[in-house]
């Protein structure tokens, strides 16, 4: 594949002096506070040009914010990052890469990097946990004290006495090196569980290819005739992609926004459809029922691309295979799934026009095509009930179905439905609609999901643990929704509670639901180590905090969700005594006695990640990256699973039916395999405050009638950017957005202070009126930490309860009450 233009931007060739005309005059600030020193522009403006030495480095933003690991250039003057400019990467066809926006936050990275909240030295707790008393210690002491404790705990309680936890902060190649130490230690994993439902349903459906996960890569959106923005608000949480929505619209697409909240995306759409929260799957079912009624079933698509014709045994929900008839060895390659054609069961690949409806008996075994199971599930609902449940008028559902079937239709979704415990009911409904009507596996038809339907670049292979296969492996995983039970009970699902944790690229105390539980779980451990760039809330509650180098202070590799493999080059020395994750883990690893496994230097490690056959095949190498910094290693054409990319499901087809489905984590929960194997709809666990359509309101609703959700707003990426003064000037404090009618009912107005609470906790916060908030809902921007609130914490409100199928953080599945603080 073609290299890219930034070849002109290597350090060597771009080290230059640029002549600029001096602008302005007179001395600048005195050195009060953060006033800046007088610059060279003291001269009058008629003076000769001054020369300013500036180095430009290719760099990247972190890429876990529904961004695409957004590349950028950083400009160094006097040893400091002084400016950030937008990248100018080209696609192989010479057009500008659509994945290189630097958003409002990207330009604030300089302020983050030089923030007073940077952790500059290893710190050790010197008072009560969370009290803010710290003692600066040396790296040598930090490493020896931490590893001595780990050794002691592992000797006494076993390898899983130590746990590692990571999140989605600045994810780059060097971060993965932590996994090496974890494997060698056999330490357990504490897994945060954001977006698990949303991601796994897509992979379970078969929206997983070799190049792309999540159906259609985002670039394909522009080919749609009808774009349904459904379960996401890209104008806040995926702003770097909104230009693709604009382009689709300019290409003639009708844009429909389905959301409980009237967002900017809603305001810009052709049609806004307000919907009752957590009922998206029912709306999809209604559209599917109408599509079938009106003859828009795509039978050929169902027969050839989906599991529709596969015969499912009534007895156990498993597919009927040749082995069931004694005609093949079970699990052998010849053991074909059977379909029904011409009055008999035949191997699926021997049939040309298999039945997709009905029920049959094959050698005494009662079976149905999988599609019949889906139809039976859909037909449990009538359109009037769906209209009542979703609060979408029947006429609107009819209109949406008509639009859906009028051309190439495409769902741009995100992780809104995911944040309710019944999220799967939403996505599985959407995918069933796509399967039934054949709106997938085509350019312009299918589905993209914010920060998920992303390019997966060949050639970048993480080698951090490659040589450990058969040598060492990490311990077991406890997922966040069950972590606190493990810590409270000391034992859970065969695991023992860890005694120590190493937490990196993660701030679980603020970002995970039910913060009070996290505080208790931290307290239950003998030693918590947090490595971070900043004094996050998790760091504030740690025993040791290790200072991590900022993105621009280290060499690294990244391909996060971008067609380019990127070599991001260290531009300046780390602040204070901060170190890169690679160096930190190497030091800890050696001190743990794994000297033989930590002999690599950083360059050797990074080079090894791009030295493989796949890399060679696409022109990727360490040497090439040194020159070009960013190399496109991805197919030129936008990838669409089922069209340009293979469907990596168990059957090789789109699966609206999941044979033998098992829960993501088997923790002894009640498990109804047959129910979970195909679309159904049930209310969320808590966020069902009214009795509707025969579904009883939850008991909590009597005390807590309001539904609280947190918006993934543009001013933050989780808790990142809380330390950027310019972002704080735009968005200075947290507030709760309330519909004016609710405000009136609760006797509050703009600027009033309210206490929002439930049994788990409370937050005291200012009110902002927003007519776009659905009555009965309260919205707070996600990411504010403890210091932002007048009192309490919004993360104290949410629950860790989860659905049996997925280990999932269900922030939105949360009821509260609100009262004015006098």
């Amino acid at each position, binding site marked *: 594949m073609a290299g890219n233009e930034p070849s002109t931007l290597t350090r060597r060739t771009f080290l230059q002096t640029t002549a600029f005309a001096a602008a302005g005059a007179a001395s600048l600030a005195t050195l009060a*506070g*953060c006033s800046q020193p007088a610059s060279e522009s003291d001269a009058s403006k008629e003076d000769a040009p001054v020369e300013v030495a500036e180095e430009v480095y290719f760099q990247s933003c972190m890429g876990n914010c529904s961004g695409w690991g957004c590349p950028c250039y950083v400009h160094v003057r006097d040893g400091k990052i002084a400016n950030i400019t937008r990248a100018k990467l080209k696609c192989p066809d010479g057009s500008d890469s659509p994945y290189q926006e630097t*958003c409002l936050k*990207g330009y604030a990275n300089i302020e983050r990097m030089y923030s007073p909240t940077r952790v500059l030295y290893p710190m050790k707790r010197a008072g009560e946990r969370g009290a803010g008393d710290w003692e600066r210690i040396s790296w040598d002491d930090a490493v020896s004290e931490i590893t001595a404790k780990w050794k002691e705990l592992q000797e006494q309680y076993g390898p899983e006495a130590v746990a590692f936890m990571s999140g989605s902060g600045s994810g780059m190649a060097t971060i993965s090196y932590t996994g090496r130490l974890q494997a060698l230690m056999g330490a357990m994993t504490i897994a945060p569980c954001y977006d698990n439902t949303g991601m796994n349903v897509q992979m379970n459906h078969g929206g997983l290819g070799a190049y792309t996960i999540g159906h259609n890569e985002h670039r394909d959106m522009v080919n749609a005739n009808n774009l349904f923005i459904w379960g996401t608000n890209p104008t806040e949480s995926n702003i770097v992609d909104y230009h693709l929505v604009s382009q689709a619209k300019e290409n003639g697409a009708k844009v429909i926004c389905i959301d409980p909240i009237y967002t900017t995306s809603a305001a810009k759409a052709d049609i806004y459809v*307000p919907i009752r929260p957590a009922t998206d799957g029912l709306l999809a079912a209604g559209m599917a029922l109408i599509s079938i009624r009106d003859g828009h079933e795509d039978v050929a698509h169902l027969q050839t691309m989906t599991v529709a014709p596969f015969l499912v045994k009534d007895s156990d929900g498993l597919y009927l295979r040749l082995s069931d008839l004694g005609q093949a060895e079970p699990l052998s390659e010849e053991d074909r799934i059977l379909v029904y054609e011409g009055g008999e069961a035949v191997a699926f690949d021997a049939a040309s026009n298999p039945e997709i409806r009905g029920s049959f008996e094959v050698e005494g075994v009662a079976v149905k095509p999988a599609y019949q199971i889906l139809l039976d599930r859909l037909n449990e609902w009538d359109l009037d009930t769906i209209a009542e449940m979703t609060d979408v008028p029947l006429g609107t559902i009819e209109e949406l179905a008509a639009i859906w079937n009028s051309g190439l239709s495409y769902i741009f979704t995100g992780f809104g439905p995911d944040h309710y415990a019944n999220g799967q009911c939403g996505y599985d409904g959407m995918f069933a609609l796509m399967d039934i009507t054949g709106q997938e596996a085509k350019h312009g038809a299918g589905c993209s999901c914010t920060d998920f339907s992303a390019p997966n670049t060949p050639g970048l292979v993480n080698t951090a643990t490659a040589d450990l296969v058969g040598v060492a492996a990490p311990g077991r995983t406890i997922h966040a929704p069950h972590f606190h039970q493990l810590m409270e009970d000391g034992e859970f699902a065969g695991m023992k509670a860890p005694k120590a944790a190493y937490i990196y690229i993660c701030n679980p105390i603020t970002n995970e639901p039910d913060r009070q539980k996290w505080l208790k779980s931290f307290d239950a451990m003998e030693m918590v180590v947090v490595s971070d760039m900043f004094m996050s809330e998790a760091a504030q509650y740690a025993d040791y905090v290790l200072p991590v180098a900022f993105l621009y202070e280290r060499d690294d590799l990244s391909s996060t969700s971008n067609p380019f493999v990127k070599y991001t080059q260290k531009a300046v020395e780390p602040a204070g005594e901060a170190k890169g994750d690679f160096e930190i883990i190497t030091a800890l690893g050696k001190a743990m006695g794994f000297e033989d496994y930590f002999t690599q230097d950083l360059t050797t490690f990074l080079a090894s990640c791009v030295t493989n056959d796949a890399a060679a095949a696409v022109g990727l190498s360490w040497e090439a990256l040194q020159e070009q910094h960013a190399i496109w290693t991805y197919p030129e054409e936008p990838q669409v699973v089922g069209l340009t990319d293979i469907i990596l499901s168990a059957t090789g087809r789109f699966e609206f039916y999941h044979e033998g489905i098992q829960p993501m984590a088997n923790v002894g929960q009640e498990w109804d395999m047959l129910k979970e194997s195909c679309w159904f709809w049930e209310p969320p666990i808590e966020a069902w405050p009214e009795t509707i359509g025969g579904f009883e309101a939850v008991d909590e609703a009597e005390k807590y009638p309001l539904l609280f959700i947190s918006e993934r707003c543009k001013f933050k990426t989780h808790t990142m950017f809380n330390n950027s003064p*310019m972002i704080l000037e*735009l968005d200075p404090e947290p507030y709760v957005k309330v519909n004016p009618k609710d405000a009136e009912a609760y006797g509050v107005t703009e600027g009033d202070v309210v206490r929002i609470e439930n049994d788990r906790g409370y937050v005291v916060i200012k009110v902002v009126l927003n007519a776009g908030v659905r009555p009965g809902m309260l919205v707070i921007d996600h990411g504010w930490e403890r210091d932002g609130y007048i009192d309490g914490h919004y993360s104290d409100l949410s629950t860790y309860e989860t659905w049996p199928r997925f280990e999932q953080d269900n922030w939105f599945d949360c009821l509260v009450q609100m009262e004015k603080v006098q």
Partner: protein
Amino acid sequence: MQYGMVIDLERCMGCQTCATSCKLANNLPSGNWWNTVRTEGGKTIDTASGEYPNCELQHYPVACQHCKEPACVAVCPTGATYKDEETGLVMQDPETCIGCKSCIEACPYAVRVYNDGEPAYAMEFAVGFADAPVHIANTVEKCTMCANLVKQDQQPMCVQACVGYARFFGDLDDPESEVSKLIASRESTQLLVEQGTDPSVYYLK
């Protein structure tokens, strides 16, 4: 020549990238914003007005409009605010500015900021472009349409940075320029036309 800007309101999603990129590029002091994104809707940014679900919400990015008939120039007692003959840009000479704020009073767009005393900064060193404008105590300042960049044949930072590809820069007097063609091909509006300022920023509807 009259440099001007076209902003496509269909494409603009109110993301504030123009505002923060401007703030960085021009090394703006704390509290100063030359480029703002205003919400037509509720009282607070990004909130809607109306009655759910029939709501209204529209963003307007607003900076100096570089008017053809600038109200600020007309009232400036020292000539610190002037219309640059070569580019048509409304410029501000901080050396001549006496900080009387007449221009702030006169400007209908609320885009000028007064440095009340010595400017303070979030950063301890100068950021943005090396030739970013200086900021001087007790003077008024505003968007220069990144005159420093334009001089080097670069686009203003907000145009370079616009994540929504909603901003266009060029010579309004040249009928062949991209901006002129956009204005000719789409329905557009200027802000507060009744003020008679004839702004050089056009908003495509």
